[in-house]
């Protein structure tokens, strides 16, 4: 007798078919990449395997008669505050398969979300708000080190800078697209991100999977990544964008490397990553040429030297306990921008324990790093780019008021292209055509659609940010940076407020 598989007995979701509406068109069968809908050709009817449903809602959305409802499986375990179905089912899975629990997206546990405990200020009576429709409102941001001081000289009655400024990257909004590798997400999404970044005057990030040949033309809006696996990393790639990001860590899985399973290394992916089809793409936990801040400096300058100092070098770390001290070391190592990815940062695949339990919230990390760099007098030498759980434009505004120069958004951009947060990206079967490279599934999200949705999202956010700035009576994002006076805490402890450097509402 085969060993029973506990995890198959208790499905997470329930596929409800309204038979009075179903016309047996079998659209659900072709939409579900997990084969949860089954056509019984003998009985000429549809069946469901609830245990296969991941709750992506694809079938429901595309059922022409709206005959499907996907809900949490109503079958309950007896209530227990400690042993919730989440823990019970995880144990079943591991007892069945004896492996590491794998998941996707960002931290799913309800740790305190500090953005939700911070409120913004607005002008009333004593100083007038600014109407962004009437007056110019500047979201333009310069990424990179700023000089300690400026020397100005007069030549023929005209003033100009005595020394050339170090190269800076100009972006038209402080919102950039986070590293998501080609391989983890489809080429179409990459194409959409790249085009949207160009039209919005911002940047997207290749992630560590190399750069597809069709995307080189978006160079001025590209950040290329150098991770420990060094996949698809060669001179042309390093020179392709405006910045090179050394990926040390990622909020969803601090302290471990990455792993693109062989199944996902298709012909096209293999060309870009420069590894054989079907082989595992392993990124070791550390870069084995970096065991110290001095080594990091070694790599930063190797990259700068290799690209003739034309590219900025960013260093991305996960927000961990000592993030402020680490960031200080990174700045001293010569990074032009420090990217901090918080506890809630997303991923295509991470061990569940890592995703949910390691790292610190981004809000605290931004403030701690900004404070530390200011205290050491080196804040101007770098930009802080924050990521991990930025859900809306108010989160962007709060992140910047806490001390960030710009933010990265990843999950939000994917939700914009239709992601329903089913958290199963690691299977490579994303029914929405996002986290997949299956040619059939990819077709579900054409690059034009990806482009339009992403573009719209950021356009909406930038407009909202302008309005919020106007309401606060400031007309440039620069004046918001680290301006904690525009924030007040609601329901935070003294200690939390100290770390965030904010006053309590009412103060």
């Amino acid at each position: 007798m085969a060993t029973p598989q506990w995890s198959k007995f208790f499905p997470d979701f329930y596929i409800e078919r309204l038979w009075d509406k179903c016309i047996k068109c079998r659209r659900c069968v072709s939409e579900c990449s997990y084969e949860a809908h089954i056509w019984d050709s003998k009985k000429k009817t549809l069946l469901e395997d609830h245990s296969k449903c991941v709750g992506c809602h694809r079938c429901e959305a595309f059922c022409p008669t709206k005959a499907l409802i996907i809900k949490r499986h109503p079958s309950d375990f007896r209530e227990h505050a400690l042993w919730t179905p989440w823990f019970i089912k995880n144990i079943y899975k591991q007892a069945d398969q004896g492996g590491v629990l794998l998941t996707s997206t960002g931290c799913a546990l309800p740790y305190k979300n500090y953005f939700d405990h911070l409120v913004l200020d607005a002008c009333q009576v004593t100083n007038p708000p600014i109407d962004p429709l009437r007056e110019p409102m500047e979201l333009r941001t310069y990424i990179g080190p700023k000089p300690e001081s400026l020397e100005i000289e007069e030549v023929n009655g005209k003033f100009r800078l005595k020394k050339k400024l170090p190269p800076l990257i100009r972006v038209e909004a402080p919102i950039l697209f986070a590293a998501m590798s080609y391989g983890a997400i489809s080429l179409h999404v990459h194409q959409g991100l790249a085009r949207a970044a160009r039209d919005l005057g911002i940047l997207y990030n290749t992630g560590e999977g190399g750069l597809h040949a069709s995307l080189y033309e978006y160079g001025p809006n590209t950040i290329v990544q150098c991770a420990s696996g060094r996949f698809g990393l060669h001179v042309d790639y390093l020179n392709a964008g405006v910045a090179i990001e050394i990926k040390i860590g990622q909020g969803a899985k601090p302290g471990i490397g990455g792993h693109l399973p062989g199944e996902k290394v298709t012909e096209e992916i293999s060309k870009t990553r420069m590894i054989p089809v079907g082989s595992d793409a392993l990124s070791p936990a550390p870069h084995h040429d970096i065991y110290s801040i001095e080594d990091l400096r070694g790599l930063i300058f190797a990259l700068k030297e290799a690209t003739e100092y034309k590219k900025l070098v960013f260093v991305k770390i996960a927000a961990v306990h000592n993030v402020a001290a680490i960031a200080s070391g990174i700045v001293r190592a010569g990074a032009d921008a420090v990217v901090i990815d918080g506890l809630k940062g997303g991923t295509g695949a991470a061990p569940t324990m890592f995703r949910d339990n390691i790292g610190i919230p981004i809000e605290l990390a931004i403030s701690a790093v900004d404070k530390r760099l200011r205290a050491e007098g080196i804040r101007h030498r770098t930009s802080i780019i924050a990521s991990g759980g930025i859900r809306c434009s108010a989160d962007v505004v709060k992140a910047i008021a806490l001390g960030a120069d710009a933010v990265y958004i990843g999950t939000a951009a994917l939700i914009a292209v239709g992601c329903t947060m089913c958290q199963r990206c690691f299977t490579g079967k994303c029914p929405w055509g996002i986290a997949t490279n299956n040619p059939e599934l990819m077709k579900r999200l054409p690059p034009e659609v990806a482009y339009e949705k992403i573009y719209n999202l950021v356009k909406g956010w930038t407009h909202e940010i302008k309005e919020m700035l106007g309401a606060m009576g400031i007309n440039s994002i620069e004046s918001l940076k680290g301006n904690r006076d525009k924030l007040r805490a609601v329901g935070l402890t003294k200690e939390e407020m100290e770390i965030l450097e904010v006053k309590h509402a009412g103060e």
Partner: protein
Amino acid sequence: MPLELEVFPFHYSQVNKIIRENLKKGEREFILRGVNGHRYLLAGVSADIKVTIYGTPGLDLGAFMRGPVIRVFGNVQDGAGNTMDEGKIVIHGMAGDVVGYAMRGGKIHIYGDVGYRVGIHMKAYMEKIPVLIIGGKAGDFLGEYMAGGVIILLGMHTLYPERPIAGLFLGTGMHGGVIYIRGKIKESQLGLGLKPYPLDGSDEKLLEGYLKEYCEDFGLELSEVLKEDFIKIIPYTHRPYGKLYAY
């Protein structure tokens, strides 16, 4: 006429700049004298040129480079051939740690010993097969995470006759490529799951081809190198993490 440069007074950045400027003018051969810890020499240079170095290059010699053939008369510090793409580095001496990290093509020939973490995560793709030959001995973690390419460890020209030919954790996490070792190695020195195997006919042919070129580089007798038997280390699986997860 090769461009001869006394680099002692210059910062590494200036040296690279001079090389790049002359490259643009069509210069294809360079001789650098007085090299003393200069970092990143030839880093990111993409051109088929010949470079002869006298002295001791610093960190990351030839990192990310595509094409140059570098010959060093001296030792080199850490990181030589870091993520290099194409070309060749011949070292008439010893090399430090992390030689050939993530190297994806080209060749590195070292006459003497190397340090720790050498040849980590080398990878091959299509016709690009990186080759790293070490004439002396190696420290721990040789060929860790190796995903492709060839490492040959000879153990012949060493300053440390009392030490074993390689350190510990050789080939840990290896999932592609091959490591050839002249002589024997204890299984306890190898990464988890790895075993030494005898060579077969095709190995011998390959090995001879690689070693012939190596011997020519250093004026050695091939027959002398082949006097002793080699063993090879290959991955026990191409999917070391294939069965790691529960879904």
